[in-house]
């Protein structure tokens, strides 16, 4: 069909999302996302990591047009301006861009049997299909995610968290989307179920050649699933790098601290640690620090960091938003 070069399926440029809040008796705007840019290639999985307040869920909702976006553009291959679409045009894009939610059970209508819930995307977005075709597709996808057709008549509360998540995955894949945004799909699951669902996502990724945006705070899962990773802090991009490069040689001080903070299930290494890799707290989004937002906690911060916002620049295949990225790399803490 087309050339072997990976197509840029999705291009996000300078995304900004803010919303109005009341603070100290005044209306102010809280910047949840600021100047976020990234690409997604075909059949690629991009991980988006960050802690609470980083804006990752906001990003998921912005891409799926569930919340209004203040600034920036998102281009969907070949030339669709995603943020400008409305009505029928927007709904037709939902055939290409779908979402898996964090809490499988909460993402299902408690009053709807799951058979109906699974058919619904087809009913609405692919009305040309006959009932028989819809049923066939539902059955096929149920099998793919490891559930039984006997479950179709049941209600959401009758399922476990892991099963509900499988239903959510099946539902997202009903319309054969090109891109699936996963909003922390593992967060509400038990450890052993997490492993199962991660394996399922890996399998589906390979079988269906899906492009995925995988949003999580769980770094080991991101390492397993993602080809490239984007690190968010206070709604700004700190680093974007190929997975291997990011985990082996993180260039941004925040990425470093994040990786060092992950608990290691090995007493020989972890035992008796008395200091944490990163001190302090994330500043309030109502009063973000000037220049680089990370500077208040960064061990390498200098004057320039308070004056100038660091732009994303490419170093050896990774994009880093840090004035001192080259220097820091030499001196590992």
């Amino acid at each position, binding site marked *: 069909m087309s050339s072997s070069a990976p197509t840029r399926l999705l291009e996000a440029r300078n995304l900004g999302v803010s919303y109005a809040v009341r603070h100290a008796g005044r209306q102010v705007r809280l910047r949840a996302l600021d100047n976020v840019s990234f690409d997604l290639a075909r059949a690629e999985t991009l991980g988006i990591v960050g802690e609470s307040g980083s804006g990752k869920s906001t990003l998921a909702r912005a891409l799926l047009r569930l919340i209004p976006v203040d600034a920036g553009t998102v281009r969907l291959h070949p030339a669709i301006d995603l943020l400008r679409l409305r009505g029928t045009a927007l709904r037709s894009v939902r055939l290409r861009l779908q979402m898996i*939610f964090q809490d499988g059970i*909460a993402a299902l*209508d408690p009053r709807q049997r799951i058979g109906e819930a699974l058919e619904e995307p087809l009913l*609405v*977005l692919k009305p040309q299909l006959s009932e028989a075709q819809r049923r066939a597709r539902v059955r096929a996808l149920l099998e793919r995610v490891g559930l039984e057709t006997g479950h179709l008549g049941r209600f959401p509360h009758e399922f476990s968290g892991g099963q509900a998540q499988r239903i959510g995955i099946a539902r997202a894949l009903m319309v054969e989307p090109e891109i699936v945004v996963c909003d922390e799909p593992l967060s509400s699951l038990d450890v052993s179920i997490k492993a199962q669902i991660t394996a399922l996502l890996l399998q589906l990724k390979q079988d269906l050649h899906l492009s995925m945006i995988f949003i999580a705070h769980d770094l080991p899962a991101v390492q397993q699933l993602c080809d490239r990773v984007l690190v968010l802090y206070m709604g700004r991009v700190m680093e974007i790098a190929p997975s291997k490069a990011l985990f082996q040689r993180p260039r941004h001080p925040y990425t470093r601290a994040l990786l060092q903070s992950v608990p290691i299930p090995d007493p020989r290494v972890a035992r008796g640690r008395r200091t944490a890799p990163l001190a302090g707290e994330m500043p309030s989004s109502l009063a973000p620090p000037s220049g680089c937002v990370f500077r208040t906690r960064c061990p390498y911060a200098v004057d320039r960091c308070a004056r100038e916002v660091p732009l994303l620049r490419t170093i050896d295949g990774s994009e880093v938003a840090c004035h001192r990225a080259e220097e820091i790399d030499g001196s590992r803490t």
Partner: protein
Amino acid sequence: MNSPWQQRLRGHPGILIAGGVLLLITLASLILPALSPYDYFTPQLDLISRPPMLQGGHLLGTDPLGRDLLIRVLWGCRISLLIALVASLISVVVGVLWGAIAGYVGGHTDALMMRTVDVLYSVPFVPFVIVLTMLFGRQLWLMFIAIGAVSWLDIARIVRGEALSLKRREFIEAARVAGVHGARMIGRHIVPNLLGVVIIYATLTVPTVILFEAFMSFLGLGVRVPLASLGSLIADGASDMQAHPHLLLVPAAVLASIIYCFNFLGDGLRDLLDPRKQT
């Protein structure tokens, strides 16, 4: 069979009692008049305003035209309950749709719709009904419309509030992502998840509606003679209170019981459907 519903009902005997009493009254009002030798409209001028007596056939006495009071009251129940249920149905349907659309669509539509509700709230009810009666005469169906037209306002407000909070729930977002919108969203996802609240408030609307009707009949605006509603019976009885107290007490007691039972039922349902469910 021990479904969780039955278990919870066991903890709320009030619902069963109230429901039972209402059922009894309804059945009585439907069946007994057919079984009685008396009817509600034929005057018997030799038996005017007799007090209740256990022998002689008129258990609750007679009214000023000699008609059996028990039958009159049972007919009054029929009419009052009919008006109550039909008017409540109208108000629930209109109120739910209005509130659900306003709450889900939001923005200017919501503002417009709810300001309309605010304006209608301020319309004085009695002059409104008087005007309608002048235009259309004293018809039974007018009662349905007039009462239903006013009672939907409360339900609309409550439903709108619920719809607003439902809008933010994850499964509504998931439905949006699945392409669901408009009528399907409201009809399939919003309204069914409101039903708990709606049932409770609908049950509590009924007594309000009955009282409205009773009040209007009391003012002489309600049903036409010889039909009677509980309200008109109370009106008639009130004018003759001192000499023949039974003419007032009997319909008043029945009306009070019906209203009490509906309130009890509504309260009980509210407890029962409370999200604090323990399985």
